[in-house]
């Protein structure tokens, strides 16, 4: 039987070629017309620990979420088998290195003790020995899982007998072995894989050639497994797709938005965005050089935000990117931006906190930090994006809002969105507009904080014959420090009351989006990266007879009360479920304080791993059919 969709895990030591395997395979699949989403799960210790890529590949649509069990596990080491064997579906396939057959779980020191104990207990319950061969035999017998044992060393040796191998690039061939074996099992046209190698290794022709030689060897040796999990020919109706991460889409969005200054201090999972921007500091278009974009790695996040504010005051579209710990350092600067009405965009990628927390794992636990941090009262906007494509458009929206209302905008994303690689339709640039707001040419009597306007005309530092003053202190219309109580009332109110203007003027599609069928018998409310799994869950639940909708809250602050209340009005409150990657599911508190609507049913996940479809659907059904109010999801290694 041919499959519409295949889920797979590629597992191995971090740094051993998994990332390249994911990129080659995803490029091959995208080139062949398949839809792909790939999540990278890795430890924060940089290299050596167990990492895995969890992918969903579809022949019929662009996948939005991940799911368990997976059809295929490609294990580069024994730890991957011990960690994931139970995630493989009946009738699935495990690709593994025959050299690890005799390995016992006690031989794997890199596994954390708690996981080892859980796996050992599970093996004991199943009455299986704790070595690779015993596990694979059990899976073969009891769960019809085919083991495809490959001999990495033999193939590498054959390769070495033909080419002069550089030992320092061995992982490039290990990636090749994993990708080709996987592609064979999925019954992919190997021309796609060839394209994947060429795209990945670009001008390193020797590595491409050697991998193609390996491909022939593998094809011959593993012929019998070809098409074991045959995926259907793709029928996705999209003429052009991009394969990129959320970090990439934000960076591209910034280029399109016309960013001229980006600052950062390296931090996971934000840094990749700045690295991509660095590659495009000078962009040529039709023979003209656009830009340049100055990308500055500052000494810390305080300098990152303050330098971006300085750049913004000169009229450059300016931004910075960080995650929770970095944002915490930026908070004083954020308050300064509020006081001085500085348009600036902070791209905030959430990760697991508090403190250093789980730096390379995901989270949505910083909603309140984004919405309420910093001293004093002032207007800010917090926007979120549900997927890669939205992240692109919202990046442009963030700058437009920042400049139109002269406020800091926090674009709140998370690690799952940042680091996952996905095939995404190419953004439609005709939908993009640039709004630089109320600007001024300044002049002799220019008042930067002119009280005749709710949003004062903005002249840029350096404008001819124009003087303006910026300080952290309360000021008059020129920016001079004053403490007069009447002036305080006018200035202070003016800054805060922008929130009302923003709430009333920002178009509804930037504030929230509603998906699913009308007159639903349940409503899921969430924001950010839960969108994909929530939408897939609606489809699954429809098959089970539930009619649902998903409300994606995009503008989180100021909270769009009017639009939210309109959506919620026809829905039974006991059938509303809030979902979030956090303990508290803070969106429900934000809704409650903004609208008085109390959502009591919640789905939470705070392991740092993304919500996957199977557990999500189960939780929603449980909440809809029982008195239970709070479900914590925990699936995923």
């Amino acid at each position, binding site marked *: 039987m041919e499959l519409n969709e295949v889920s797979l895990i590629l597992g191995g030591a971090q740094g*051993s070629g998994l990332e390249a395997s994911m990129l080659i395979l995803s490029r091959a699949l995208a080139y062949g017309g398949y839809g792909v989403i790939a999540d990278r799960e890795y430890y924060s210790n940089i290299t050596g620990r167990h990492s895995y890529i969890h992918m969903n590949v579809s022949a019929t649509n662009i996948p939005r979420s991940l799911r368990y069990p997976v059809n295929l596990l490609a294990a580069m080491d024994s730890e991957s088998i011990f960690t994931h064997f139970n995630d493989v579906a009946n009738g699935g396939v495990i690709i593994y290195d025959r050299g690890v057959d005799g390995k016992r779980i006690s*031989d794997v020191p*890199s596994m954390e003790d708690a996981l080892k104990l859980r796996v050992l207990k599970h093996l004991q319950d199943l009455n299986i020995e704790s070595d690779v061969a015993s596990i694979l035999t059990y899976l073969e017998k009891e769960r019809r899982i085919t083991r495809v044992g490959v001999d990495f060393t033999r193939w590498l040796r054959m390769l070495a007998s033909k080419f002069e191998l550089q030992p320092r690039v061995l992982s490039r061939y290990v990636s090749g072995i994993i990708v080709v074996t996987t592609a064979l099992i999925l019954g992919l046209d190997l021309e796609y894989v060839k394209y994947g190698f060429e795209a990945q290794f670009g001008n390193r022709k020797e590595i491409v050639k050697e991998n193609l030689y390996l491909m022939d060897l593998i094809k011959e040796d593993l012929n019998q497994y070809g098409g074991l999990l045959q995926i259907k020919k793709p029928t996705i109706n999209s003429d052009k797709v991009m394969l990129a991460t959320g970090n990439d889409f934000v960076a591209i969005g910034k280029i399109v938005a016309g960013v001229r200054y980006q600052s950062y201090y390296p931090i996971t*999972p934000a840094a990749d965005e700045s690295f991509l921007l660095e590659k495009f500091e000078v962009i040529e278009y039709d023979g003209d050089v656009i830009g340049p974009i100055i990308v500055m790695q500052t000494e810390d996040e305080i300098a990152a935000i303050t330098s971006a504010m300085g750049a913004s005051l000169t009229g450059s579209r300016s931004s910075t990117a960080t995650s929770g710990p970095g944002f915490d350092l930026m908070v004083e600067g954020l308050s300064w931006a509020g006081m001085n009405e500085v348009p600036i965009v902070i791209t905030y990628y959430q990760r697991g906190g508090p403190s250093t927390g789980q730096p390379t794992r995901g989270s949505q636990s910083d909603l309140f930090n984004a919405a309420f941090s910093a001293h004093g009262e002032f207007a800010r906007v917090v926007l979120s994006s549900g997927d890669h494509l939205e992240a692109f458009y919202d990046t442009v929206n963030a700058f437009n809002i920042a400049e139109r209302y002269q406020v800091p905008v926090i674009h709140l994303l998370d690690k799952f969105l940042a680091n996952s690689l996905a095939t995404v339709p190419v953004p439609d640039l005709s939908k993009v507009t640039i709004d630089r707001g109320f600007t001024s040419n300044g002049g002799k009597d220019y008042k930067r904080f002119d009280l005749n306007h709710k949003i004062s005309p903005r002249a840029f530092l350096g404008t001819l014959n124009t003087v303006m003053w910026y300080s952290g202190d309360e000021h008059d219309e020129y920016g001079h420090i004053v403490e007069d109580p009447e002036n305080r009332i006018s200035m202070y109110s003016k800054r805060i009351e922008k929130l009302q203007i923003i709430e009333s003027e920002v178009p509804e599609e930037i504030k929230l989006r509603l998906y699913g069928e009308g007159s639903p018998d349940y409503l899921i409310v969430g924001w950010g990266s839960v969108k994909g799994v929530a939408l897939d869950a609606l489809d699954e639940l429809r098959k089970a007879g539930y009619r649902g909708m998903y409300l994606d809250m995009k503008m989180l602050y100021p909270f769009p009360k009017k639009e939210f209340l309109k959506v919620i009005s026809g829905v039974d409150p006991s059938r509303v479920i809030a979902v979030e990657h956090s303990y508290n599911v803070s969106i429900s508190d934000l809704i409650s304080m903004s609208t008085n609507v109390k959502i009591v049913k919640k789905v939470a996940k705070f392991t740092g791993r993304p919500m996957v479809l199977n557990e999500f659907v189960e939780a929603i059904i449980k909440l809809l059919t029982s008195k239970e109010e709070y479900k914590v999801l925990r699936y995923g290694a």
Partner: protein
Amino acid sequence: MSKVGCLCCLYFKPHIYVSSAGYCSLKGRCVFGDGVVCGEYRDKVIDDLKKVLSDVGWVYCVTCRKTLVDEFELEDHFNSHDVVADVLIDEAVSDEAPSAD
């Protein structure tokens, strides 16, 4: 150690993840560890590793995928793990490892 061939040779520098292959620091090329050893083979004994530890400051445990930085650690790992004087870092590490914490 039950391993044979170059794997037990002091001059064999295994690849950090594909430890059956690596670099022979005498011959300066890629070798596979389980093959027939050459005339230059030198058994890897703990005293050699102790010397490396004192000269360089670390040796590497392939089994644990980590550096060992003192003699107690070395003794602890030496008998049951694959400890080597040096390890070959793959070029992919720089692309594959997260760039910050």
